[in-house]
């Protein structure tokens, strides 16, 4: 046991024990129970549930919209973080404080507010309709809601990193003849990328599981605008616990595999 307990600071056993018991009772055992429940299904049963067209459609929709929202935030979030860290301008403090609004605002409130704005009768929905674009009750609306809910992740992970890059490094590169694009590619990008990926994966994970903000704007049409968490809800309402569990397990597995891949990519970047 390579445990080195600080000899004078007490509480190791107490705090570690409490942490483990608390986590086990509230998180690990209940999550494990879901896997035990799923294990009661045979492979054929599990497969027939998760390969149903309606589940497959929801699976694709959930992961595609969450990915799109995380990618959009990757761009908007970088712009916002850059503007907030590098420039002082009127209103900067207000924007800085309000960036976290999507975390503070209950998702149901965000959901009905966005629906009121982007529904065909809403202020921005009318505008979009005049261009022939339908936002609410389509995958675009779902992506929009997810982009709103996960907006702070990329901004908040990039800000400290951007603040830590000394301006001198960029200036030195520029003095040595690097063009702005070269400075970005060789100086800024390598420093920003790990944090950017962290923000991206946090936004993605949250987006895949998000429920409250999406269900109002999605329209929830089976096969078209029905997200995976909603499908779990539908199965539960029908007392189809096997179905709900199988979809839950599928969702967790796919999420973990994707997050693991992002994590590996991050390590690869950190090494090079």
């Amino acid at each position, binding site marked *: 046991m390579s445990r080195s307990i600080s000899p004078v600071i007490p509480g190791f056993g107490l705090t570690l024990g409490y942490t483990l018991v608390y986590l086990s009772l509230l998180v690990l055992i209940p999550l494990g129970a879901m896997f035990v429940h799923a294990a009661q299904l045979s492979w054929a049963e599990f497969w027939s549930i998760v390969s149903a067209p309606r589940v497959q459609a929801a699976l694709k929709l959930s992961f595609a919209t969450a990915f799109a929202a995380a990618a959009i935030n990757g761009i908007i979030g970088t712009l916002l973080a*850059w503007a907030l860290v590098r420039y002082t301008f009127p*209103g900067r403090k207000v924007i800085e404080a309000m960036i976290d609004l999507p975390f503070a*605002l209950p998702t149901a409130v965000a959901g009905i507010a966005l629906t009121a704005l982007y529904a065909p009768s809403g202020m921005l929905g009318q505008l979009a309709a005049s261009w022939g674009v339908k936002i609410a009750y389509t995958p675009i609306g779902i992506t929009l809601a997810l982009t709103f809910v996960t907006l702070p992740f990329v901004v908040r992970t990039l800000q400290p990193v951007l603040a830590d890059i000394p301006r001198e490094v960029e200036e030195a590169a520029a003095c040595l003849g690097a063009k702005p694009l070269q400075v970005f590619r060789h100086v800024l990008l390598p420093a920003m990328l790990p944090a950017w990926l962290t923000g991206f994966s946090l936004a993605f994970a949250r987006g895949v599981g*998000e429920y409250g903000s999406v269900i109002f704007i999605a329209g929830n049409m089976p096969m078209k605008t029905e997200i995976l968490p909603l499908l779990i809800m539908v199965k539960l309402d029908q007392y189809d616990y096997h179905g709900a569990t199988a979809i839950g397990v599928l969702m967790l597995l796919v999420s973990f595999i994707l997050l693991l891949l992002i994590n590996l990519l991050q390590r690869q970047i950190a090494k090079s």
Partner: protein
Amino acid sequence: MSSITLAAGAASNAKRRGNAIGRRVLIVSAWLVFALFLLLPLLIVVSEALKHGIGTFLASVFEADAVAALQLTLLAVGISVPLNLIFGVAAAWCVSKYSFRGKSILVTLIDLPFSVSPVIAGLIYVLLFGAQGFIGPWLRAHDIQIIFALPGIVLATVFVTVPFVARELIPLMQGQGTQEEEAARLLGANGWQMFWHVTLPNIKWGLIYGVVLCTARAMGEFGAVSVVSGHIRGYTNTLPLHVEILYNEYNHVAAFSVASLLLLLALVILLVKQWSESRLK
């Protein structure tokens, strides 16, 4: 010679001009995102709530079911936030003050609820405590109700907010190290004295920050609570669920009135967060 300096000067002027344009574009786009994406939804909530005047707004907010929902939300927050506060301090303590094998696994497990969908968070408790669940029959035999009652709502809320306090405290306490605590011990303080007089003042603002984020999420949690609540009006309906019910009944003014109450709470949370953050720095 002078022509070279001139050329270099012109080039750097051009670059500066380029930077100034980039700067302007970035600031304008920051403003646009803010106005379109953050401000407009707020305004629409308030304007929809006040569509039929302040009287209808007040009537919707003070309606009996809305008040019951507010009380339930505050009760659930009041139980689950302190639980996660104590857990967060304990977890951050053992992670930051000692080194032991498996620490990185423990940190990953603490963060786990962030990558689990809230709907799944609700589902797992239904599978455990529901009528068909693993210990459902036993609970029913002893007349204990967890699902479709307050305990289930609290459990689901606790699950989704487990990491908030710990996540804020771990990097903060790791940065502070153990020297001050060691000094306190060597000067004769016992464990609790050391915690109350040395550690707690050091982590105070980070702690408040974590609690604020935890409160915000606990107050607004929708998916997880929706699965375990059963939506019984006046009994197991939290404020966000009440918004959904009103909205689905096409009672939009009432839905937005209750929503603006939640919006107000969210803005208070943002203010407290801003204040604790500035103290943290």
